[in-house]
């Protein structure tokens, strides 16, 4: 029997030892997602712990500048400073209902790790997070935040020592401790049922947007723009609008320092735009790879977008034309970061700055229409050090 896929994409390309765990996860999820007690508790945590719902904020100054009405979906105001907690609280609660004692996660910049640490501490799990040694060095504050909440952070020294290697190491832990442990994956990636589960937990973003925009504007937006690394904030805000085909959906990937490949490294992270079909970390999707199928390292000023793959459902939606992938480079993202700070008094995450930069990039084309919603997936406090360092320009050192 073939496992559920998104067109050609998705599937379960994992070691045999994980197959029973994936089956269990799928069955338990199907059961609890309809369970009133589970849903009541999830709603409680989303409201009282995460701080939902988040505002849909009319960015007047930005709107004026670009001559179109722009709303920001304020996921930066979720506890922890990003949309990540929507997923971690959902999965951690699921793991609790499943009787697991331990949760593990991968993290790049530390946002998903921090959100996992929050959910883990609150719900009483033993929590471990795998993080590339390079990222541990670059994101000391997030490491400390996780440790404060009782999470064990394991630096990963294999491969490129970044997010992709952290996922490999988390998978190795899961293979070893599969009976006691839930792997709390941080985006709409990995083997089925993860892309579906993470999408569902993140759909709260789009569901709120739909209600809020109807209240404020009495109609659906012309377009929705969201940054895409693995793609969880993008899938979360897009999903409730998939059937509303008049609403254009734009995932924005990291163009990094250019679309070229240098040695084993792509100078960008645009798997939807420039990747090719392959199998990475459990799923068939679009990935950055060389002609033999070895995975390339990716590049982005924003650690959360710096990943060689992308969620299989996004790959599918791009292939069918329902979503239209775009990209902006490091410098454009940095400029948008500064612009939002000055115009609106909001410091956006560098990830989210990619979505903002796309507004500017597309402003003259009219493609975005008169009413635009941007997913402001996180706040930028975590990025201040990076931004300070890059005053001279985003890519000088790397090229």
């Amino acid at each position, binding site marked *: *029997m*073939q*496992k559920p896929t998104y067109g050609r994409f998705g*599937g*379960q*390309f*994992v*070691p*045999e*030892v994980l*197959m*029973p*765990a994936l089956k269990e996860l799928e069955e338990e999820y199907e059961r609890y997602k309809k369970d009133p007690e589970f849903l009541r508790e999830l709603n409680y945590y989303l409201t009282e712990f995460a701080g939902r719902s988040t505002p849909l904020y009319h960015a007047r100054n930005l709107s004026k500048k670009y001559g179109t009405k722009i709303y920001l979906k304020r996921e930066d105001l979720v506890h922890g400073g990003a949309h990540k907690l929507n997923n971690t609280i959902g999965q951690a609660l699921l793991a609790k209902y499943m009787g697991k004692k331990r949760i593990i996660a991968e993290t790049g910049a530390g946002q998903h790790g921090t959100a996992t640490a929050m959910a883990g501490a609150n719900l009483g799990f033993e929590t471990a997070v795998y993080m590339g040694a390079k990222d541990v060095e670059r994101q000391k504050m997030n490491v400390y935040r996780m440790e404060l909440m009782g999470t064990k952070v394991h630096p990963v020294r*294999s*491969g490129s020592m970044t997010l*992709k*290697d952290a996922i*490999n190491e988390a*998978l*190795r832990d899961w*293979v*070893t*401790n*599969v*009976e006691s442990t839930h792997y709390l994956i941080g985006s709409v990636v990995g083997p089925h049922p993860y892309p579906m589960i993470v999408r569902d937990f993140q759909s709260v973003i789009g569901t709120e947007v739909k209600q809020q925009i109807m209240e404020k504007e009495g109609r659906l937006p012309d377009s929705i723009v969201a940054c895409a690394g693995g793609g969880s904030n993008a899938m979360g805000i897009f999903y409730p609008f998939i059937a509303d085909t008049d609403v254009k959906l734009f995932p924005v990937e990291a163009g990094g320092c250019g679309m070229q490949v240098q040695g*084993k490294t792509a100078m960008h992270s645009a798997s939807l735009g420039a990747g090719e*079909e*392959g*199998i*990475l*970390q*459990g799923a*068939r999707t679009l*990935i950055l*790879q060389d*002609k*033999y*199928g*070895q*995975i390339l390292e990716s590049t982005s000023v924003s650690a959360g977008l710096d990943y060689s793959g992308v969620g299989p459902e996004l790959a599918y939606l791009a292939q069918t034309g329902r979503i239209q992938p775009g990209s902006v480079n490091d410098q454009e993202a940095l400029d948008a970061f500064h612009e939002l700070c000055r115009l609106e008094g909001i410091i956006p995450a560098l990830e989210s700055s990619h979505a903002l930069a796309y507004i500017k990039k597309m402003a003259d084309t009219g493609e975005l229409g008169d009413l635009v919603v941007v997913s402001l997936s996180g706040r930028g406090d975590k990025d201040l050090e990076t931004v300070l360092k890059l005053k001279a320009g985003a890519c000088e050192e790397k090229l």
Partner: protein
Amino acid sequence: MRIAEKFQELKAKKEKALIAYVCAGDPSADATREYVHALVKGGADIVELGLPFSDPVADGPTIQAASDRALEAGMNPDTYFELAASIKEQVPLVCMTYYNLIFRRGVEKFVKDCAASGITGIIVPDLPIEEADDIVKACKAHGVDTIFMVTPVTDNDRMQKIFNKGSGFIYIVSRLGVTGTRADVAKSTKEILEKVNTTLPRAVGFGISNGKQAAEVIAAGADAVIVGSAFVNIIASQNNVDEQLEQLARELKAGCST
């Protein structure tokens, strides 16, 4: 040589099999050819030739490092098949690699290249039976076996499906975890061997590194032991490698024969 022929030959001699893994191209293709010779001389009956992948999720630190060395030294699927074709030992060669390299080359072409270069079995640790229809079909057409794994958490239903789909031998992962050497033999080994009810030879791997462990696994009822990381450690030491490989193979093979 086909895997079944080898097991028949061993059966006639009342021997159990030693299956040895090395990573192709670690540290060079020429060295790998030599190492395979040493392993076979020491008593290896089947050689698993790893085709290195950038992201080997089922492997522990030892084989990860070997893969990195081999990739760094320039091993790729083209040079891999050249290397395989140049190995003249009279043992079955088995390709062990991750699915993206196969998918990228094209499943049909990959399997054809295996057959043309004398490889008669394929193991893909990130390819469960549900995703394996294409490769099983191509393998059947080209006379190559597809070897699948069973683990301590595989239930009877699933085992049956795996036996039906697999050929060559059944790879029994005796413990939860990734590849790497361990001090002891997993207690679950005997238990799982009792559950593996198949006419295919039953090979136990993950964690075996010396003759004593090999003997325990054989005593528990296995038809073969699979040893990887222990050989790779010798290769990584860069110290008297041929001699040490031959010696360890001899010790393990002796363990298989008691």
